[in-house]
């Protein structure tokens, strides 16, 4: 039997904590790339398939899927400690918590400077305009804002990689922009540490193993859930460092709403669409690949429902977060008060390299072998029950059949066929127990009796 976990060099932010994983099927069945299997009673993530969307994390009933993050104390390695904030961090607090309080809280926690990522969206926009005008070969342009979507396209929709707009997302752009600004002001480059406060797992993965760029401009990632807790604690106990005035950064309404669904698409030229949620995006990309919709100019795709407000690390309710940010944007006194960027889009600094497809769909690199395997999958599907119960440890009957032709599973793992085999005396009860143990862990079957 082949190993499921091969080391591929892809960095993933999602990790299964074996001690917590109870071996159910929730994560496996919601994964949009069928990257999860259950073996020995634990979920296993197949690295080359995972796009870090976080669906598994949201579905896990026992919080066994951990989102890796850098140790917060890392920030103190740098004399200049910059927090890069997305608008949704502030948006998730109830409206009685002022933006100033959040800033003050971050300063109390040890950050020396606070910059809002969404302050650079005009620079992103310049990049979009330039790319669409000069480089894009075929419509529609697809936004690279959401890293889970970029990965989804790489692994599942390889024919669409050339539609991706090769412009860095606001988080990376803000990191580069502010680093340059600080250095230009005479700060020692070594002393500056830039920390990105992330609403999702995909961002962590994209910073640790960047796509279309050699290295990330960010020095570390802070999990937003962690920060939310620390900030609430400070606010609740009033232990805030209140010395000195806190100057909040003014962001344009466009910037405030950029990370939410529709935030980008409403500012692009022509026929623009915004789609959110992995299942919706997958459905739409499938359609797009079949060339039924060739007249769309711009596609904004987001892995999470409501865009970043629905990020897996956002603690506040996503609809309330959207509502607060909409109100904030409406109250903003025009665009004039927003900080002006003293830079123009520069491809070398802010562009991305060509994004490579890496399809994980092929059954075999050799066409002849692939056809043979495909035929065997079809034969197996005639035998399998077709109810996708996932009790074999694979997400669907088809996935089990595919795992079988890749020698990663066996037909006897199907609980329905097991019964037939036992009845026909081709399998003993003990053997069946042994098999089920390999999938669900030894004695899992008898768990209810031991309670």
């Amino acid at each position, binding site marked *: 039997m082949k190993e499921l976990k091969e080391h591929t060099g892809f960095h993933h932010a999602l990790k299964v904590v074996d001690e917590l994983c109870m071996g159910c099927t929730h994560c496996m069945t919601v994964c949009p790339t069928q990257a999860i299997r259950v073996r020995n009673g634990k979920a296993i993530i197949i690295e080359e398939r995972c796009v870090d969307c976080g669906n598994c994390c949201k579905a896990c009933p026992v919080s066994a899927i951990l989102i890796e993050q850098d140790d917060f104390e890392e920030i103190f390695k740098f004399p200049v400690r910059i927090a890069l904030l997305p608008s949704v961090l502030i948006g998730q607090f109830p409206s009685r918590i002022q933006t100033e309080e959040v800033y003050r809280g971050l300063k109390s926690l040890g950050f020396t400077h606070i910059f809002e990522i969404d302050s650079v969206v005009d620079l992103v926009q310049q990049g979009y305009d330039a790319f669409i005008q000069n480089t894009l070969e075929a419509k529609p342009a697809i936004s690279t804002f959401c890293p889970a979507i970029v990965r989804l396209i790489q692994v599942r929709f*390889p*024919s669409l990689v050339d539609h991706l707009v090769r412009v860095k997302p606001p988080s990376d752009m803000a990191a580069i922009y502010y680093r340059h600004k600080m250095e230009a002001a005479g700060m020692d480059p070594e002393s500056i540490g830039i920390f990105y406060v992330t609403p999702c797992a995909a961002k962590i993965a994209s910073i640790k193993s960047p796509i279309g760029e050699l290295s990330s401009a960010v020095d570390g990632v802070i999990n937003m859930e962690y920060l939310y807790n620390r900030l609430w604690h400070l606010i609740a106990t009033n232990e805030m460092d209140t010395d000195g005035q806190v100057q909040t950064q003014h962001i344009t309404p466009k910037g405030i709403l950029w990370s939410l669904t529709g935030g980008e698409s409403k500012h692009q030229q022509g026929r623009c669409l915004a789609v959110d949620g992995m299942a919706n995006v997958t459905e739409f990309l*499938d359609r797009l*690949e*079949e*060339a*039924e919709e060739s007249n769309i100019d711009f596609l904004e795709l987001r892995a999470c429902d409501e865009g970043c407000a629905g990020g897996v690390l956002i603690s506040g309710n996503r609809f309330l977060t959207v509502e607060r940010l909409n109100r904030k944007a409406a109250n903003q006194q025009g665009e004039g008060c927003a900080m002006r960027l003293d830079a123009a889009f520069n491809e070398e600094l802010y562009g991305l390299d060509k994004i490579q*497809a890496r*399809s994980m*769909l*092929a*059954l*075999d*690199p*050799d*066409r*002849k072998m*692939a*056809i043979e395997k*495909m*035929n065997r999958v*079809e034969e197996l599907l005639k035998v399998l029950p077709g109810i996708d119960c996932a009790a074999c440890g694979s997400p669907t009957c088809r996935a089990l059949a595919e795992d079988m032709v890749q020698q990663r599973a066996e037909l006897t793992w199907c609980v329905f066929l097991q019964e037939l085999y036992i009845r026909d005396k081709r399998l003993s009860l003990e053997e069946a127990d042994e098999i089920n143990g390999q999938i669900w862990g030894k004695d899992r079957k008898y768990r209810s009796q031991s309670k």
Partner: protein
Amino acid sequence: MKLHYHIDGGDFVNAGKASSAVKGVLKQLNVPSRRIKRVVIALYETEVNVVAHATQGEIEVAIDSDQISILVSDSGPGIADVEKAMQEGFTTASKEVREMGFGAGMGQPNMKRNSDRMDIQSVPGQGTTVRIVNELKD
């Protein structure tokens, strides 16, 4: 490997199901995406033609390691002048069909453009048979 699909005339809801399924198969067979796209467009246009004009049709797909061969045969009005039907903009689609966004007279030209070899045989009053052969290797 062989695949088979049935098309019902007038069933616009399901037009595109076969091309979508074939796309899925070709992806798993490690066919370059540019090649897949051509097959999908050619087949999709054929499917729409059967749905729009015929009473019913059958799609037979044969795939080997070098090429895909698609045979679509329908029972329907047939095409009186195949050559004319191949011209861009030529359409006999009803107003109803055109209002649904089909029948702009680009179907056949699109089929031809996206196939390596294409052949149309038609008997007016009986039906049409379209054969499309595409190479799968780059």
